[in-house]
């Protein structure tokens, strides 16, 4: 038995994670991180979500605490999210929250408070290659798999983490919750970015903090063919929401230059690339040579490639990855399943 701090968002996954750890005989304490004080309708730290987490913990007979990491969330997640948009990048705030809040701030606090491990309700697995080296593996429910947002975990972190529901499918999680009488059994999954409300959206959030600038839309020859209201809200690969009048072929955003207030659109072919430059490349257990599989969005397709220097060379031409997005590198190790071996940010 060990002493486990389980991060409870108020959703069904972390509720079941807590219940499973308790069934295994661990001494379990629940914690909900209070990250965001502003408006939120899908987040994991609204008062009603904290109430759900607390009431689930009460029903399981375990202690529950709330940790206010609002300052850190602003510093490491919200601030950079805004700055990235200003710089024309496409951030993934959930990954930054995992990197800086859940798996750094919370894990360090748990250690200071004498916990042996921290558990979360992520759909992912921690696999051991038999020599003590750990990797993040895909969750058993491939449709819910969250290994993509966990790519930053290193050996120290993996050694003190538990993902109790990683081997379960979502229907199994809900069935277990219902059978155990957990009140969040039928609660809808959270979606989207927790600090952005679905009613007012990303544009309204950003416009409260920075000035959004209108821009020109040009074709690849440089001819102006339209306008956008806010160049900071445009992402490479985007097709909807760009008004360029009638165009016979589908056109995509192929470049965004915030400084020049210019969005370039072109045919799908112009979105293709042979390689993607990687920055902040971090390996789970040391550099992996040779071929990898790469995933460039949370539930996106996996494509084959190879890391050469600071680039990922795609085996076949690949749709360009927006700067700021994470590129997660997997290997399909026959024994371990498909596992994360590293991750980086697209330059």
């Amino acid at each position, binding site marked *: 038995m060990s002493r486990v701090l389980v991060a409870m968002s108020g959703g069904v996954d972390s509720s079941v994670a807590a219940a499973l750890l308790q069934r295994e005989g661990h001494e379990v304490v629940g914690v909900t991180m209070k990250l965001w004080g502003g408006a939120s309708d899908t987040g994991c730290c609204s008062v009603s979500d904290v109430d759900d987490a*607390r009431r689930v913990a009460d029903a399981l007979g375990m202690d529950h605490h709330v940790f*206010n990491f609002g300052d850190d969330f602003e510093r490491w997640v919200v601030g950079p999210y805004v700055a990235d948009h200003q710089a024309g990048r496409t951030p993934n705030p959930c990954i930054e929250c995992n990197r800086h809040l859940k798996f750094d701030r919370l894990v360090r606090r748990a250690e*200071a*408070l004498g916990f042996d491990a921290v558990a979360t309700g992520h759909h992912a697995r921690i696999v051991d290659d038999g020599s003590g080296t750990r990797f993040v593996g895909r969750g058993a429910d491939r449709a819910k798999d969250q290994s993509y947002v966990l790519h930053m975990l290193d050996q120290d972190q993996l050694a003190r983490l538990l993902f109790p529901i990683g081997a379960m499918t979502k229907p199994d999680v809900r069935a277990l919750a219902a059978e155990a009488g957990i009140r969040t059994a039928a609660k809808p999954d959270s979606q989207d970015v927790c600090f952005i409300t679905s009613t007012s959206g990303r544009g309204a959030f950003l416009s409260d903090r920075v000035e959004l600038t209108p821009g020109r839309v040009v074709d690849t020859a440089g001819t102006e063919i339209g306008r956008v209201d806010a160049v900071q809200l445009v992402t490479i690969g985007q097709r909807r929401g760009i008004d360029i009048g009638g165009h016979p072929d589908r056109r995509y955003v192929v470049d965004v230059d915030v400084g020049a207030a210019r969005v370039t659109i072109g045919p799908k072919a112009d979105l293709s690339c042979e390689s993607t430059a990687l920055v902040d490349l971090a390996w789970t257990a040391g550099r992996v040579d040779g071929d990898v599989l790469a995933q460039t969005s949370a539930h996106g397709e996996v494509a084959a490639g190879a890391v050469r220097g600071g680039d990922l060379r795609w085996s076949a031409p690949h749709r360009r990855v927006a700067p700021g997005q994470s590129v997660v590198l997997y290997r399909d190790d026959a024994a371990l399943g498909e596992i994360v071996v590293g991750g980086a940010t697209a330059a």
Partner: protein
Amino acid sequence: MAPTEPIAYLDNAATTRVRPEAIAAMIPAMEASYANPSGAHALAREARRAVDDARDVLAEALGCGPGDIVFTAGGTEADNLAVFGVHQRHGGVIVCPATEHHAVLHAVEHCGGRVVGVDSMGVVDLDAFSDALDPSVTLVSVMLANNETGVIHDLDQIAAIVRDRAPGALFHTDAVQAFQWVDVAAAAASADMISLSAHKFGGPKGVGVLAVREGVTLAPQLIGGGQERDRRSGTHNTPGIVGMAAAAAATVRTRTRTVLEVGAMRDRLADGLCATIDGAIETAVGGRDDRPAGGDRGNVDRSNKVAGSCHICVDGVESEALLFLLEEERVYASAASSCASGAQDPSHVLAAMGVSRAMARGSLRLSLGYATTEAEIDHALAVVPEAFARLRAFA
């Protein structure tokens, strides 16, 4: 599951254990005096008598007439009634210090009022306060004792400035945290309105008082049957009111001794913590602030604070983690005010006093009460420094 029975309950500024006298008074108020005090029959008159007896006790304790007592559902309602009641009836500008309890501060902000800064000791900046006053001001609200730091305001001094700069303004004081420790009848003699909350001095939760001196008019915030002379409608909470009066009587009767005994325990606790916790700064104390090894704290002056308040800040330690470790040792305390989710929010009081966010993040409020024992202080002194040391090691 962790044991929940405290070994040291040091969160009396949040709430107190209900006094036996209050419990004893409330049971017959529920079993026998259950009729509606506004009714016409004999049983109603019996309940009415219980409420009016309580009214006499509170009037005596606050130095006002029985007709001045308006029973409310607690301190927040009393504060809201003072601020919104005056603003709706008289309009104008409302002024308060930045360290007020949110029940006053948020109400004043809601009315578009003026918030005045405080000095590093938590006392309203008298120059800025004077500058903020003019004939457009209809209400000034200054708390008697602060809920986080225990700092006491000299209300006579403030009332003199109000009379000089805004002679038409009413003067309200939130005495919720003071009543256990301070003779409010004397200290708030210059106030037109006084807020109290029963559960801060051994009474039950959900009942309080706004004392409104004769001649003061305000708009009721609860409208209905016209109870409390049309100032606060709603059927009287007879058991709560009776319990509050019993607690108030016991508090007044024992106050001098409690202040001496608890004050000595508080001094022992604060001196002991400052002597054993590296970098601990005691909040808002006067006198010498250099702490030589060995715990010689003879020159520290805490006469500006209520006897039950021990408040320290330590850089590099996080209150939330500290409270977690203290709970494991069954020491129950708090840091700043708690938000709706139960998380610790940064203290607006410490921020107003100019305490850095880093220091304020490491704040610990140990608040003693009438029931605090030497054994509780012993236990706190044994485990609090250790918890700080552990967190320091992981910082």
